[in-house]
């Protein structure tokens, strides 16, 4: 039957479906077990595999050992032809010879699940013959390839390690940050997406970022970051007159040209935030205060307030200690605690908006304190009131270079 006719025939398609189904029915258990085991074996460190090879020995002995150990690892590691190349890379970086790697790659034909399948269909005796024949063939083939490649000078010499890979990823990440700093957002986002694929193990921060990126309907983190910066930098005088997209571009240029003031994120019901708020005016008067809902921040990262965990008593004791160190204690814990900071948070957002409206024709609050900040005053008073019945710090000096902001 010609191909065109077969493609249109229902019976042919039915045959295909049956074959496919039967193939899977034949091997699905072995494939599933193989994948699961290969996953676990992938977790073994480099050291595990490195220990298996003779690296410091005469070349011929090393060659023979490697070429035999390669298939052995393949047989024991259950890694089929889908998963053996990454493991081959691990072995290569671990020091196995070229022939060893090649033999390992060939050996996906005799991994245990497949041997089990042979046994099921051909019986034990014939299976042993197949496996032995294949082993000999693959070892000889690997040796032949090693010989040919070394004659042609094609054997690679570089052995990248996992650490190199990580460094490479870190490098890509650095580049992303650099580009973001220059304001080239589109490229940065694209580069970041490219690097995101293999990122999560680089740093914990990567996991948080990708979790954020997966959340639907939220703008990209880098775009948000720029928005944060845009909000806090001082755009040029021309920016006010320019059209909106222009203003945005100017703001971005301004971001690059003037140092971005730090942001101070705090929760109004958090004692640690209070300690920081009492001291930050002395240490970082430039900081832009940002009152957030602590509960939402915790939740976004799958955490919860320590006041709701078994660490509560420990945390309270620690807070009391720090409060007395900063001469702020003892703390008057509200009942119940922690309690909702939603209304206080809204009040702070309102204060922030009002400060922005009252601030001179730029986006930033004046750092030298000449512009009174209702947010700072509100937040500090609320924290003092909420956690210590409104007491001011006992001394004028509080913290290293601390001074509490003037109530205005």
């Amino acid at each position, binding site marked *: 039957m010609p191909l065109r006719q077969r493609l249109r025939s229902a019976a042919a398609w039915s045959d295909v479906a049956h074959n496919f189904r039967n193939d899977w029915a034949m091997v699905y258990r072995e494939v599933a077990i193989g994948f699961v085991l290969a996953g676990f074996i992938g977790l073994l460190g480099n050291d595990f595999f490195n220990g298996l090879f003779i690296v410091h020995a005469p070349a011929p002995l090393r060659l023979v050992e490697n070429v035999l150990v390669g298939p052995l690892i393949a047989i024991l590691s259950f890694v089929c032809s889908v998963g053996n190349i990454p493991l081959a890379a691990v072995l290569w970086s671990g020091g196995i010879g070229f022939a060893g790697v090649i033999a390992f790659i060939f050996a996906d034909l005799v991994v245990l699940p497949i041997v089990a399948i042979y046994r099921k269909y051909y019986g034990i005796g014939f299976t042993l013959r197949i496996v032995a024949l294949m082993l000999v063939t693959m070892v000889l083939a690997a040796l032949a390839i090693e010989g040919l490649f070394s004659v042609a000078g094609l054997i690679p010499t570089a052995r990248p390690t996992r650490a190199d890979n990580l460094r490479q990823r870190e490098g890509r990440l650095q580049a992303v*940050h650099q580009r973001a700093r220059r304001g080239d957002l589109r490229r940065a986002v694209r580069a970041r997406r490219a690097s995101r694929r293999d990122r999560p193990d680089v740093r914990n*921060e990567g996991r*948080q970022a990708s979790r954020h990126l997966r959340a639907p309907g*939220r703008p990209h*983190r880098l775009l*948000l*970051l720029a928005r*944060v910066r845009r909000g806090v930098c001082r755009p040029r005088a021309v920016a006010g007159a320019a059209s909106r997209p222009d203003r945005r571009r100017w703001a971005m240029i301004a971001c*690059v*040209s*003037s*140092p*971005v003031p*730090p*942001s*101070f*994120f*705090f*929760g109004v019901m*958090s004692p*640690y*935030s209070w300690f*920081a708020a009492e001291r*930050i005016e002395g*240490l*970082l008067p*430039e900081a832009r205060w*940002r*009152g*957030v*809902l*602590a509960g*939402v*921040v*915790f939740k*976004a*990262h799958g*955490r919860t307030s320590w006041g709701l965990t078994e660490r509560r008593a420990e945390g309270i004791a620690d807070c009391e200690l*720090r409060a007395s160190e900063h001469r702020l204690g003892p703390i008057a814990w*509200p009942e119940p605690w922690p309690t909702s*900071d939603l*209304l206080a948070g*809204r*009040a*702070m*957002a*309102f*204060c*922030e*908006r*009002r400060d922005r409206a009252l601030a001179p024709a730029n986006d930033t609050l004046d750092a030298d304190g000449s512009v009174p900040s*209702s947010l700072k*005053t*509100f937040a500090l*008073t*609320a924290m003092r*009131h*909420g956690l210590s019945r409104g007491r001011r710090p006992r001394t004028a000096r509080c*913290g290293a270079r601390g001074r509490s902001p003037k*109530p205005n």
Partner: protein
Amino acid sequence: MRCSRPVAEAKLTSTELRAALEDQQVKDELRSITGEATAVGVFGVPTVLVGDELFWGDDRLERAADAYRASATREPSGPGAA
């Protein structure tokens, strides 16, 4: 939480504040500030963001201040400096 004292200190009037607490724009603003915080990687409070670096905890304030001073001296001064 009773807010009368902080409200007075910040020179807010109770009527404007009462209106603000139910104002959708204020609610959105608070959501976006908190969203910005989580977006830059803030996972707890207090956190100070200096450049791209996060300093979590009230005991890291000094380090944040040092990092800011160091970056301010390093930062290029004009748009010409890339």
